């Protein structure tokens, strides 16, 4: 059962042990302190979350702070008493920074909360027991204070070959684990059995240094007595054999991979103190509220181990152990090799405090002044991690952090062996700590810098895009202004338009040329910068690379902006060129980003269609003004309005498609067509519903007593309302979408808003007219039935008429606004009657085609002749055919002229 370690580890030192002083007296039980100070961060990870209020009375073992995250721990009241304070207090930490602590004033009743041991732990699952350990606040008691539940949770994912119990206690002076093993041997073995149940290891090994013969004897005895399946392995006394990695190497010959955890190689390592705490938690239901601590050092006359409640101030323990304040020079928490000094004796004992070393000046004198490193290599011989400490010192001093990392700085366990042997008294570990923290800070800073860089670049791109957009808008406005001046001047003098247009065209050409030159320049600059960048990258000059990269990004932006401008100007100039020839009210609507001729052609086509529709509308409206009571004309007008809307829609779609091609960063460019489709569909639905309603109304008028018809009217009305709502929704959607697109749509946004308003006005007008018609019908019906609501209805009718009037007025205004230059265009048209005729011919042809298509579609859908008739489509067809014939005749006549 008793074995010697078969393996060894590199380096190691043999400092004076100084362990006998604190083993002269039995385990002491100091009286309870007046105040127990319980820091919320007694472990590695997140500080615990307080569960109690000031003034609250708590019982011994009652949880007073809970887990606050995955790597965190519970905290319990070490005795019964009152919470008197939750505030910052000095804690045992190398930084010396205060931390939030719960301060408990004991009531000296020592009254336990009801304890709930896991009597049947052998039947419980590992998860349940680990949960229990977590709620009992168990953390690793060897020094780091890693929450035990987290460590054990790792065993569920890995097959554990060895469970290693660390009983080495290699640090000089400390005897807390030795005393624990002597006093609580059975509890230790039973705690290990619980851990065996949890981790299911193939082997369980206790590693203990050969300088603890009493503990070894008792452990052997207990293992035999309890029949535990545990191997006791004695390792030679050498610092730092108690280091987790070194003990694993000593007992198994395996090495924990660099940057990994023991669990990665199937090993779990637990301190003996933790095993006893596990026993207490599982077998007795007691949380971790006390620990064994060594009080030692020559400034104490009664050096001993004590079992103290957590939170007991160090000063209380020093007094108990009879210390000499005048002799005390250095107060170390932990052992001399890895412990840290504290300046304030009011700090409390926490879960990881294994030793309080009160040293005199003679015992631990001031370190000698640091001398130069002579690279004697003694540190290398002592390093248990197989590092080159002398090289690491060199790199740390000269801030060559990359070299230090390459020499595995982060594998340093900070055991202090190198500092111990250094003949030049160099505080090597301190240099490494400094380098490590500098590197960690640099890493964090690098991550932050990366984020900042991404954000900065996004911002820069955005600002540049905005600037380019503004510039493009300005250019467009300038071109527009030039064009409109030309056209405004047109009516005054007849030959002016061509001239002005020509001037503006030549202006545009100049701008175009200038832009082209600019583009060429920018491209050259960009190429040069890219070449420079390549050279800089090859030479590894990171500063220059960064600058050049910035420059290139800027140049690329610039180039893009110039290209955009160039394209928009190109389109504009084409438009200006065409202004004298093409009679379209949309001429000066700036079309930008025409990247492909296909989409440009589409836009043009759509514009032509829109112009045709607008013209027909106007004609119909004129006719309507002459014969206001003509129902057929009214219907025609509505149809035309619809046609205009469709044409506008098509134009917009085409323009959008065009914009989409260029605007790579545009806000969800694919969404727009879908929305437009929805809008179109909603409009069509609305038209159909309106027609259906009208038909139903007519039928109802013919047969007013038909209940069935009435019901149909109501349902139709409902449908209409639904369709209207759908349309509205689609419109708002369309609008919001347009708003989001405004950034990329640039100069186009003013025109669409206008057309939108126009469309809205037209729709309003149509709706008002339809509503009024309904009211008229209602009046008729009321007259027939002699209903009392007649007066009200008539009033409504009047109001409706007034509304129609205002709407028509505003529509006209808008049309005028939209086609401000229409008179000029018309003049031009008048000047060229042949062309006008041709256009009329084309219009008529288009209208005819449309009607024909419509009829065909309906036939396909199976609509009967009668239905077609009622819808006036056939009439329309005849009309269109007549018109076409008329225009053809006219054309022939003019040609003969």
């Amino acid at each position, binding site marked *: 059962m008793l074995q010697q370690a078969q393996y060894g580890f590199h380096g190691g030192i043999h400092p*004076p042990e100084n362990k006998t002083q604190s083993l002269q007296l039995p385990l002491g039980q100091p009286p309870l302190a007046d105040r127990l100070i319980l820091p919320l961060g007694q472990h590695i990870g997140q500080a615990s979350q307080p569960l109690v209020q000031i003034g609250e009375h708590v019982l011994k073992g009652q949880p007073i702070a809970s887990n606050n995250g995955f790597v965190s721990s519970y905290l319990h009241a070490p005795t019964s008493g009152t919470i008197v304070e939750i505030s910052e207090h000095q804690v045992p930490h190398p930084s010396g920074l205060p931390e939030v602590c719960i301060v408990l004033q004991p009531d000296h009743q020592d009254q336990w909360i009801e304890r709930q041991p896991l009597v049947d732990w052998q039947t419980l699952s590992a998860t349940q027991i680990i949960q229990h350990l977590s709620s009992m606040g168990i953390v690793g008691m060897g020094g780091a204070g890693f929450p035990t539940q987290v460590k054990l949770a790792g065993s569920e994912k890995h097959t554990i070959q060895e469970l290693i119990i660390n009983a080495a206690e290699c640090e000089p002076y400390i005897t807390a684990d030795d005393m624990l093993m002597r006093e609580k041997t059975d509890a230790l073995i039973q705690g290990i059995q619980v851990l065996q149940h949890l981790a299911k290891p193939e082997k369980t090994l206790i590693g203990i240094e050969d300088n603890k013969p009493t503990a070894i004897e008792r452990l052997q005895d207990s293992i035999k007595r309890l029949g535990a399946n545990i191997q006791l392995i004695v390792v030679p006394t050498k610092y730092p054999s108690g280091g987790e990695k070194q003990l694993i190497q000593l007992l198994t010959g395996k090495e924990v991979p660099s940057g990994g955890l023991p669990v990665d190689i199937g090993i779990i390592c637990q301190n003996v103190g933790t095993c006893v705490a596990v026993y207490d938690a599982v077998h007795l239901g007691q949380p971790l509220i006390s620990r064994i601590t060594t009080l030692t050092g020559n400034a104490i006359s009664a050096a001993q181990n004590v079992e103290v409640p957590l939170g007991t101030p160090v000063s209380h323990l020093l007094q108990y152990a009879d210390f000499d304040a*005048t002799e005390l020079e*250095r107060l170390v928490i932990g052992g001399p090799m*890895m412990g840290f000094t504290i300046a304030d004796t009011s700090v409390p004992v926490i879960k990881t405090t294994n030793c309080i070393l009160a040293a005199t000046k003679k015992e631990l004198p001031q370190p000698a002044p640091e001398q*130069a490193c002579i690279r004697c290599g003694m540190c290398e011989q002592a390093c248990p991690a197989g590092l080159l400490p002398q090289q690491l010192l060199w790199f740390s001093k000269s801030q060559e952090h990359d070299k230090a990392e390459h020499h595995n700085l982060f594998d340093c366990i900070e055991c202090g062996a190198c500092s111990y042997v250094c003949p030049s008294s160099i505080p090597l570990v301190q240099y490494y700590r400094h380098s490590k923290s500098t590197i960690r800070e640099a890493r964090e800073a690098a991550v932050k810098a990366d984020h900042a860089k991404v954000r900065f670049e996004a911002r820069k791109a955005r600002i540049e895009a905005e600037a380019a957009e503004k510039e493009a808008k300005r250019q467009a406005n300038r071109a527009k202004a030039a064009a409109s001046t030309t056209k405004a001047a047109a009516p005054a003098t007849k030959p002016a338009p061509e001239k002005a247009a020509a001037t503006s065209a030549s202006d545009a050409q100049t701008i175009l040329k200038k832009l082209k030159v600019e583009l060429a320049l920018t491209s050259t600059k960009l190429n040069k910068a890219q070449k420079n960048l390549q050279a800089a990258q090859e030479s590894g000059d990171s500063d220059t690379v960064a600058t050049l990269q910035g420059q290139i990004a800027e140049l690329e932006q610039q180039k893009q902006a110039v290209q955009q401008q160039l394209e928009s100007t190109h389109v504009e100039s084409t438009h200006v060129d065409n202004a004298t020839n093409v009679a379209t009210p949309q001429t000066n609507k700036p079309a930008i980003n025409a990247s492909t001729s296909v989409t440009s052609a589409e836009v043009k086509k759509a514009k032509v269609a829109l112009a045709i529709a607008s013209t027909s509308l106007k004609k119909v409206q004129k006719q309507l003004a002459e014969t206001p009571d003509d129902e057929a004309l009214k219907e025609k007008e509505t149809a035309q309005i619809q046609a205009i809307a469709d044409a506008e829609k098509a134009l917009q779609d085409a323009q959008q498609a065009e914009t989409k091609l260029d605007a790579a960063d545009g806000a969800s460019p694919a969404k727009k067509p879908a929305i437009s489709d929805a809008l179109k569909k909603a409009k069509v639905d609305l038209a159909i519903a309106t027609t259906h309603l009208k038909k139903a109304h007519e039928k109802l008028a013919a047969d007013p007593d038909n209940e069935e018809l009435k019901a149909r009217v109501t349902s139709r009305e409902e449908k209409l309302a639904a369709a209207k709502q759908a349309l509205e929704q689609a419109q708002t959607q369309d609008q919001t979408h347009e708003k989001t697109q405004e950034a990329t749509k640039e100069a186009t946004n003013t025109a669409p808003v206008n057309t939108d308003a126009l469309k809205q006005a037209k729709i309003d007008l149509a709706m008002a007219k339809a509503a009024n018609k309904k009211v008229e019908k209602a009046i008729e019906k009321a007259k027939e039935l002699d209903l009392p609501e007649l007066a009200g209805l008539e009033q409504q009718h009047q109001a409706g008429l007034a509304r129609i009037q205002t709407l028509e007025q505003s529509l006209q205004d808008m049309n005028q606004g939209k086609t401000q230059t229409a008179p000029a265009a018309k003049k031009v048209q008048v000047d060229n009657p042949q062309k006008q005729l041709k256009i009329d011919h084309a219009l008529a042809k288009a209208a005819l085609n449309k009607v024909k298509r419509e009829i065909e579609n309906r036939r396909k859908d199976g609509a009967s002749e009668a239905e077609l008739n009622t819808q006036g489509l056939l009439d329309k067809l005849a009309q269109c055919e007549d018109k076409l014939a008329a225009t053809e005749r006219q054309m022939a006549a003019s040609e003969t002229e």
Partner: protein
Amino acid sequence: MALLRITSPHTQRTGHRTAWIMQMVILATLPGLLVQTWLFGWGTFIQVLIAIATALVCEAAVLKLRGRSIMFFLQDYSAVLTALLLALALPPSVPWWLTVTGVAFSIIVAKQLYGGLGNNPFNPAMIGYALLLVSFPVPMTQWFGAYEVTAANEVMAFTDSIKLIFTGAIEGAHAVDAYTIDAYTMATPLDAFKHKEGLMSSEAFATLPALQPANINAFFWINMAYLAGGLFLLYLRVITWHTPVALLSALAIIAGFFYIIDSSNAASSWFHLTTGAAMFGAFFIATDPVSSCTSNRGKLFYGAGIGILIYIIRTWGGYPDAIAFAVLLMNFAAPFIDYYAQPRTYGHKEAKKGLKTGGDNP
């Protein structure tokens, strides 16, 4: 009760100070110094005193100029050791100003101008030696013969030695022909062997006075004295075995190889190890920690390199012995070797090499 706040480890660092290391090395040279004085007269002893005095003065002067604490640095004994090692390497008969020049150059240029102890890339003593050997080749190659083989058949008296070193001539009662300087000096065995001028090895050993057993034995005893000193340092763990063992093995192996090929012209391994400054170089010069390799594996390469260079320079170079140049050449290579001779760190599958980052992902 003002509590000290000091970083770990908290230990009583009493022994193993840098000064202690230097003192131990100085102590370890004493057998060699004694044997040299016994066999070749007081010359070496006087040179040591001159050198140490010069070194302390130079070191103090430069420290003063650099604004450093003079006593703190003088107490590390490094200047004394440098001077001692250089003086031991010099022929006993060189004039005083030559020693002073060499030591001053060692301390001021080779050590302090590079930043003082711990920062000198080259072995300061060997820099001084190399300077003197190149600048003053004649006095630097004149050794006293061992007392049994000189014309005077005795070692020079203390007063005569002082006179010789400080005035360059011997006067008074002994100033007769037989007592001129030539009566005392002769080539070292290595020098004699190198310049045997077409003689076979056996003929050279039979005829040349410097290769007589008495003279060879004298050098053998000097080497044994330094070997003893070296073993003492190994016992104290002031040095590790890597450099001397690698050096001596490499020298022995390469010498043995050429001896087997051509035993009539080449000297044996034993001759190479015991008649020159091989032991002195292996245990006292090559082990200078500051300028040598620092990793254990690096020390093996470094030592072996010196051993091979010693043989090459001795056999085909222009100098009879080659410790200084071999050590200086390997000083150049030491940092580079260190980068490629890193030990395998715990938790890593293999040792890292060079300075490239990455590649080692266990």
